[in-house]
């Protein structure tokens, strides 16, 4: 899927100014940038949920999971996940997702009685098991504890072999470690490239207006701190 000169306005204010890019058929894209810069807005436009100027070519099937999600009725977890057809081309994928996110512990429970993190696990499972070419996840790690953050990241690493994950993240270390491509949103442009190309000290200091320090582990891997 490709997009060209995507422009989005909220009222008079231009939020996304003629951004272009390409979404490959596999891999993980992490979208990074300060609060209010337009990460959510960009994904919503690419998902066709809000109006935009510009063109999208080779529209792929996709699903978008917003930052905040709610239920409107007291349904059971299994009823909810049962809404997703069980025809995923990757055999065993659904089972693997449920196992990693410990959905079995939540089966039979009313979704409204789950904690924030439990609800997030259910929503992530709901999105991950859909057979779409692109999964867009807006801040998927919110509410998750360390264990489930880890498990979620390993799940998307697996999924990235047969579809594309576009996730919005605020943790630079996760963006650096788990993505094939990083989209760094600045006030003027969309910087796209590998983590090493995009997540440089110069770029980050400008974009976040904070001094971001880059260190290296003994194995030579980069990590960030402020």
């Amino acid at each position, binding site marked *: 899927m490709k997009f060209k000169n995507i422009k989005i306005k909220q009222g008079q204010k231009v939020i996304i100014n003629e951004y272009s890019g390409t979404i490959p058929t596999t891999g993980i894209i992490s979208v990074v940038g300060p609060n209010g810069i337009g990460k959510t807005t960009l994904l919503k436009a690419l998902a066709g949920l809000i109006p935009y100027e510009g063109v999208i070519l080779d529209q792929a099937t996709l699903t978008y999971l917003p930052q905040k999600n709610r239920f*409107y009725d*007291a349904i059971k977890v299994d*009823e909810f996940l049962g809404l997703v057809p069980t025809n995923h081309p990757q055999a065993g994928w659904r089972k693997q997702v449920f196992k990693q996110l410990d959905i079995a512990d939540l089966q039979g429970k009313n979704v409204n009685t789950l904690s924030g993190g439990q609800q997030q696990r259910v929503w992530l499972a709901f999105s991950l098991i859909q057979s779409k070419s692109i999964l867009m996840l807006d801040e998927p790690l919110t509410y998750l504890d360390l264990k489930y953050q880890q498990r979620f990241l390993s799940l998307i690493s697996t999924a990235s072999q047969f579809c594309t994950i576009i996730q919005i993240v605020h943790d630079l270390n996760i963006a650096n470690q788990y993505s094939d491509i990083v989209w760094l949103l600045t006030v003027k442009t969309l910087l796209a490239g590998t983590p090493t190309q995009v997540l440089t000290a110069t770029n980050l200091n400008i974009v976040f207006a904070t001094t971001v320090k880059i260190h290296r582990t003994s194995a030579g891997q980069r990590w960030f701190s402020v």
Partner: protein
Amino acid sequence: MSKKKGQYILSAIIILVVIVSLGIGRPTSTILWQLRMPRVIAAILIGAMLAWSALIFQTTLRANYLDGSMLGLANGSEFAVATSLVLLPNLAPYRVLLGAFFGILVVSILRYSVLSIFKQPLLLILVGLSLAMFFNAATTIITANNGFIGKSLSTITWIDVVSLFIIMLIGWLIWCWYSDKLTYYAIPSLQGKQLGFNESKVSFWLQIMAAMWLGAVTAIIGTVFFVGLVWVQIFTLTKALSLKERLGLTTLTGILLTVLADLLAHWVMAPDELPTNAVLLIISAPLLIWIMVRWRNEI
């Protein structure tokens, strides 16, 4: 108390009220068959249809504090029925069918106007209420000098009962066709759409069904404000019961209160008949206050 137990208790009380309604004062068999029987059957159908229509509007609009009366639907079709009967009094025996027809007409108009413009529940309620006020006043004006009586189950005929039954059956078929899709309304519209759920089509048919029922009921007892909303809320509060689980309880509550209202309307001021819709409101209003008290305690 479990859901099952609640349903049994409600059913038992309904049967009791029905027996009293039919048997009180030892009626002659003509009175029993020509007057009391159609009344009780109509009350049962009306209670069930009012409750279901409210549940359907709340579900399909994802707005918990709504019913058809608050969308202006009941008043709209009541106004249309009243106008038709003033112009063509010969149609009176078919008022239920007329009401159902106008219910469908009004909801179709609403879907292409109010419902597609005002998506936020609060705006929807406010706009709906202003429509209701307008049609309420219009009905009063148009019927002022025509001796138009509706509003009471005392005027019920077997034709009304049969018509109600037909309308109920048609709605029931629509319900059966779409009821397995109701789970999609528990999740945001967007997520359903991404799974390929054709929400606007399913909502259209379910709302047609609900409006048809509400229109038919309104043609007999007039607009009954808020009752659908109140009945549904009694069981929505706990958040533990899903739509399908609440359906039975809500319907039974609706039936019980309507049968009871009819009994009271007939006997409290006998031989004068009280308007059924007013009595229904009078016994439902304390319920609303009770709900408020429970809310306050929860918050």
